[in-house]
């Protein structure tokens, strides 16, 4: 029998493999990765610096151990050039079922200036290693993007002693994910740490050195520039497979091509592209069952996201796109509870001590996919 083959050894690929092995100990299993295949926790990348974590520290399980644990063949540093048929470096590989767990690429603004090519982003362990090297002799860090990842990095780096500045086109952090007062509460907490914000503006030019010119005329100096403006699903190689924003799959995580499945940051499940841990875990568990012979649909309960900004504890569960309603704010000072009512509860954002209500409120939220 040809192996079940998973492309990608990030959280999505490895979790499917792990869950599959709980159900089927022996069927041949092969994973293919373009990097070295060590298992690490990606969510930790955005708060690893202040804890003085080296890339090596972040490796939870080395690839040699993963091979043993999963009883799987893991091909590392392997560039897949085609999915149909599956081709690596001009060699064709057979599979029984193929799982695309390709991840997503950071979005980069196209910027003018001779320093533009030096903008960093941190989306995997290798990126983190580069970032850490760049910070070695740095003092000033400019972060493009005041979203979840931008704010997490800002909090972590300021805590580690850097002078951090954040730039975003939106008027407050976390843009449309939260009501203004929640964004401002986070902003105030980060400002109290010493972080500087520039809102309603964007970077237009980066000169070596670095000197950043903003669209509002401000000029900033930086030793390191980090871009954290979002992710885009990796779909480039999926030429015969239906793509919208991500690789289009149904509730069985199945693409339009027989025996090819997809999950994680590269996949669009019933119109939803959700690059977070919880959706991926739910998808991996369902897909593992399907691969083991019991076709299983994925369910998405409401999945609140914990934002790792210790300066302002924050949990958000934004309403689904297109849901109409209003934010209702309760609480005082830095301890706020924002409920999105439509007219029933459809989303929330909690700060400070109110984060304790996460579980109770999550139970009242509508599921995203039932």
């Amino acid at each position, binding site marked *: 029998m040809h192996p079940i083959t998973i492309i990608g050894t990030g*959280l999505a690929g490895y979790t499917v493999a792990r869950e599959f092995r709980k159900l089927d100990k022996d069927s041949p299993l092969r994973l293919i990765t373009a990097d070295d295949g060590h298992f690490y*926790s990606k969510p930790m990348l955005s*708060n690893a610096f202040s804890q003085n974590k080296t890339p090596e520290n972040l490796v939870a*399980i080395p690839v040699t151990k993963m091979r043993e644990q999963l009883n799987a063949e893991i091909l590392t540093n392997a560039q897949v050039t085609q999915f149909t048929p599956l081709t690596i470096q001009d060699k064709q590989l057979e599979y029984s079922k193929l799982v695309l767990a390709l991840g997503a690429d950071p979005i980069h603004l196209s910027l003018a200036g001779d320093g533009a090519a030096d903008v960093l982003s941190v989306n995997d362990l290798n990126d983190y290693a580069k970032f850490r090297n760049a910070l070695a002799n740095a003092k000033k860090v400019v972060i493009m993007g005041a979203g979840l990842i931008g704010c997490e990095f800002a909090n972590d780096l300021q805590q580690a002693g850097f002078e951090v500045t954040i730039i975003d086109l939106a008027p407050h952090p976390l843009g449309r994910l939260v009501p203004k007062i929640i964004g401002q509460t986070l902003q105030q907490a980060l400002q109290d740490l010493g972080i500087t914000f520039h809102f309603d503006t964007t970077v237009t030019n980066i000169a070596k050195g670095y000197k950043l010119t903003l669209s509002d005329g401000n000029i900033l100096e930086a030793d390191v520039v980090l871009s954290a403006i979002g992710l885009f699903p990796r779909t480039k190689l999926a030429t015969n497979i239906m793509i919208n924003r991500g690789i289009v799959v149904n509730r069985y995580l199945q693409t339009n091509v027989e025996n090819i499945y997809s999950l994680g940051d590269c996949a669009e499940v019933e119109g939803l592209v959700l690059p977070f*841990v*919880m959706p991926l*875990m739910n998808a991996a568990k369902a897909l593992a069952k399907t691969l083991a012979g019991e076709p299983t649909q994925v369910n998405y309960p409401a999945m609140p996201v*914990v934002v790792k900004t210790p300066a302002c504890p924050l949990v958000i569960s934004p309403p689904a796109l297109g849901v109409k309603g209003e934010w209702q704010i309760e609480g005082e000072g830095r301890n706020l509870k924002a409920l999105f009512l439509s007219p029933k509860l459809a989303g929330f954002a909690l700060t400070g001590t109110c984060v304790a209500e996460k579980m*109770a409120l999550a139970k009242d939220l509508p599921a995203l996919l039932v």
Partner: protein
Amino acid sequence: MSDDFKVYKCVICGFEYNEAAGIPTEGIPAGTRWDDVPDEWLCPECQVGKSDFEMLLQ
């Protein structure tokens, strides 16, 4: 507070379980030892089980 309480960390998402603090909102009182956390308990952030946690050296 006793200083022999330990902290366990989810290797998947980085969530930390602190024995001293417990998770009262999930029915795990402060001071609950890791061994006494129910086996069916799941990481509140990523839903993996107890086996995916490791002890943090403090």
